[in-house]
């Protein structure tokens, strides 16, 4: 099909084209960027005419579709980029080489400081503005979910076929909508299940404190400051709390994120814990595996299967019936009375970091994997060919994802930075976008209505982080090869390939790679924001 004339496009824009003519034009538009642009212009004109005739206001100016680098102002842009890159690289490289002694807490990768800050911040917010916070969060949750859904429906509907997309969404809605009656909601400040009480259903608890002395037949999901369990939970336990005290028993597995977790009772399933301070007392028992990410761990109890630990400081005086695997541990001590049925594998920096009392029994072998000095290790890492194979695969995946995005939403890549000021604004916006969503997601997750939304939002956030890098790659490719090169998927692929390669190589350079990656993500998030602002729903 050659380019359709404007009369036909006008009919199309006015929704008056039907049947074969419409589907033929649809498929042409999928392929032809030029006609798509024309359709958008005609649609704008229709809206414009409607506004003039209806004497409505039109305050938002319609922006040009693709921002391009302004050659005149662009002199400032390379300077700005160079300056920021150097600052990032120097600061990042300094950070990545060793931190000065005594300032360990400040290191962003250390667990301790980050934990306390996160917990304090969340509970402070909840305490100081309880009603307002929950209202805002639940309104935000409903709005974001409906926005996400309508965006998804719109996208799928336009690109695929109506009925199937509708069915898919219906299945998602029905499938995702578990019957609410099976869950007992507890929103009080203090929740208590008395010792003679039996709860037949699952419980979802939010509030300040909760105490379960009785029996719960289903699962327990709790976001509370302090949770105490002396009774019995037949299902699984999911906890987000500052303080967890378990002296009762749990029939399923325990999943806990908390500052302090003390397990004194019996867990029949596995125990998955992320905690600053984790204690499994002498009487504590875990029926299956332990997956623990800890700052301080004291394991005096009994694990019936394997244990995998990552953390700073681990003390073992109890029993592990199978293997013990310790990764990235600063200090590990196996005391007298400790018993490991299988092998012990420990990744430590120095030999002295692993201490084994002669009284500790180990059924299998002990293997210490000494981590080399980070600097030297970083060098040797880069000599291994397998690293480059992994990079090549990651590159291919990013490239394929970019092509897919372009095929689905070609206009997504219509972004650019025109001047140094633009660049700084993007950086700032990117920083806000990098920091705010995770906080918001945690807050949304705290309210009952927000749990599924928080999960969805996390996916969107991660996708945005990924897309951010791709947008930057496209922008770089375009700056080098020119805007005209990308008329088709093939042309786009060429420009994108070059841009992505540059981003990939730069972000994997020794020492300065990570700061450069951070810079890319910040800039890219700014670009994502710029692009989102031009969506019809925001552009009015």
């Amino acid at each position: 099909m050659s380019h359709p004339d404007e009369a036909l496009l006008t009919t199309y824009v006015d929704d008056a084209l039907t049947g074969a003519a419409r589907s033929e034009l649809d498929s042409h538009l999928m392929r032809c960027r030029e006609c798509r642009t024309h359709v958008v212009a005609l649609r704008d004109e229709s809206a414009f005419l409607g506004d003039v005739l209806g004497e409505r206001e039109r305050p938002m100016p319609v922006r040009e579709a693709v921002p391009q680098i302004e050659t005149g102002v662009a002199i400032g842009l390379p300077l700005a980029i160079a300056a920021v890159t150097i600052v990032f690289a120097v600061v990042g490289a300094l950070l990545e080489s060793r931190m000065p002694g005594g300032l360990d807490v400040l290191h962003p990768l250390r667990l301790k400081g980050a934990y306390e800050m996160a917990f304090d911040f969340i509970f402070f917010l909840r305490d100081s503005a309880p009603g307002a916070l929950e209202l805002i969060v639940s309104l935000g949750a409903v709005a974001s979910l409906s926005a996400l859904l309508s965006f998804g429906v719109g996208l799928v509907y336009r690109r695929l076929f109506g009925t199937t997309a509708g069915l898919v969404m219906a299945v998602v809605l029905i499938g995702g909508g578990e019957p609410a009656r099976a869950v007992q909601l507890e929103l009080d400040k203090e929740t208590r299940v008395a010792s003679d009480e039996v709860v037949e259903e699952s419980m979802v608890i939010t509030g300040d404190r909760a105490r379960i002395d009785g029996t719960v037949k289903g699962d327990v999901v709790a976001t509370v400051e302090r949770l105490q369990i002396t009774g019995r939970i037949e299902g699984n336990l999911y906890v987000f709390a500052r303080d967890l005290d378990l002296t009762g028993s749990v029939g399923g597995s325990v999943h806990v994120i908390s500052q302090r977790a003390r397990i004194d009772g019996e867990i029949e399933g596995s125990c998955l814990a992320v905690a600053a301070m984790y204690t499994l007392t002498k009487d504590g028992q875990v029926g299956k595996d332990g997956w623990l990410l800890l700052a301080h761990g004291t394991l005096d109890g009994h694990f019936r299967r394997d244990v995998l630990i990552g953390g700073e400081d681990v003390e073992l005086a109890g029993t592990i019936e199978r293997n013990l695997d310790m990764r990235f541990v600063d200090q590990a001590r196996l005391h007298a009375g400790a018993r490991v049925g299988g092998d012990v594998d420990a990744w430590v920096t120095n030999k002295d970091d692993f201490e084994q009392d002669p009284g500790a029994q180990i059924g299998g072998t002990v293997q210490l994997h000494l981590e080399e000095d980070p600097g030297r290790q970083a060098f040797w890492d880069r000599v291994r060919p397998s690293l480059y194979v992994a990079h090549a695969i990651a590159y291919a995946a990013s490239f394929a994802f970019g092509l897919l995005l372009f095929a689905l939403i070609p206009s997504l890549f219509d972004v650019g930075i025109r001047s140094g000021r633009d660049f700084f604004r993007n950086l700032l916006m990117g920083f806000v976008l990098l920091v705010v969503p995770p906080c918001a997601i945690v807050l949304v997750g705290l309210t009952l209505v927000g749990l599924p939304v928080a999960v969805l939002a996390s996916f969107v956030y991660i996708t945005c982080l990924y897309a951010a890098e791709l947008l930057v790659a496209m922008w770089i490719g375009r700056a080098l090869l020119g805007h005209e090169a990308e008329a088709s998927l093939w042309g786009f692929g060429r420009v994108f390939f070059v841009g992505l390669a540059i981003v990939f190589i730069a972000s994997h350079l020794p020492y300065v790679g990570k700061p450069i990656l951070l810079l890319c993500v910040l800039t890219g998030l700014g670009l994502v924001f710029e692009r989102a602002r031009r969506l019809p729903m925001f552009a009015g």
Partner: protein
Amino acid sequence: MHLLASACRPTLVGALPVIGSQPRGAEISNDPDHVLVRAQIERARRGETEAFGALFGSFGADVARLCARMLGSGADAEDAASETFLRARRAIDDYDATRPFRTWLLAIAAHRCIDRLRQRTREQKLFAPTELDAETLPHPGPSPLRGELDGERRRAVTRAIDQLPERYRAPLVLRYFAEQSYLEIGVALELSEAQVGMLLYRARRKLRELLTEGSPE
């Protein structure tokens, strides 16, 4: 989750309803299910005069504007507007509640106006295709209109629309202000849908030409 899902379903394709805002004709125009309008229509069907008053209050401005655009401001337009309301009141039982009320009302207004235009020119073939339409237009013409609508630009565009010949102006107003479909416009103007499309295309071209002549940008 269940509760959440059902709460979100009605908002899938639109924005959340804005609580506390006053319903105005323009805002609720495309929502045939708007609670307030539906209730008023129900009451109007039962013959409540007040409900008619409220409906005309919401949509009167739009009807008046349509008549003024089609017939020019004057007694003729005012007559057409009041005729529209008389006709609507008599025909309210025929109103199909699945369609937006505004579109239905404006369709009545459009028919009134076109009758008057025909009487005015004493020529039935006002909108019939002529040789003029067969003539090919230069390609490419001026690019589509867009941009900010400040007072001056609005006046310029409005002036250009008023300068359009009636055969172009009527379909333009019916399509982009009254939001009628090609089929509905075709019925009113006694034309096929294809001919309506051609008239609209030419109307837009002519309008662009008038505006580029008026202000060389």
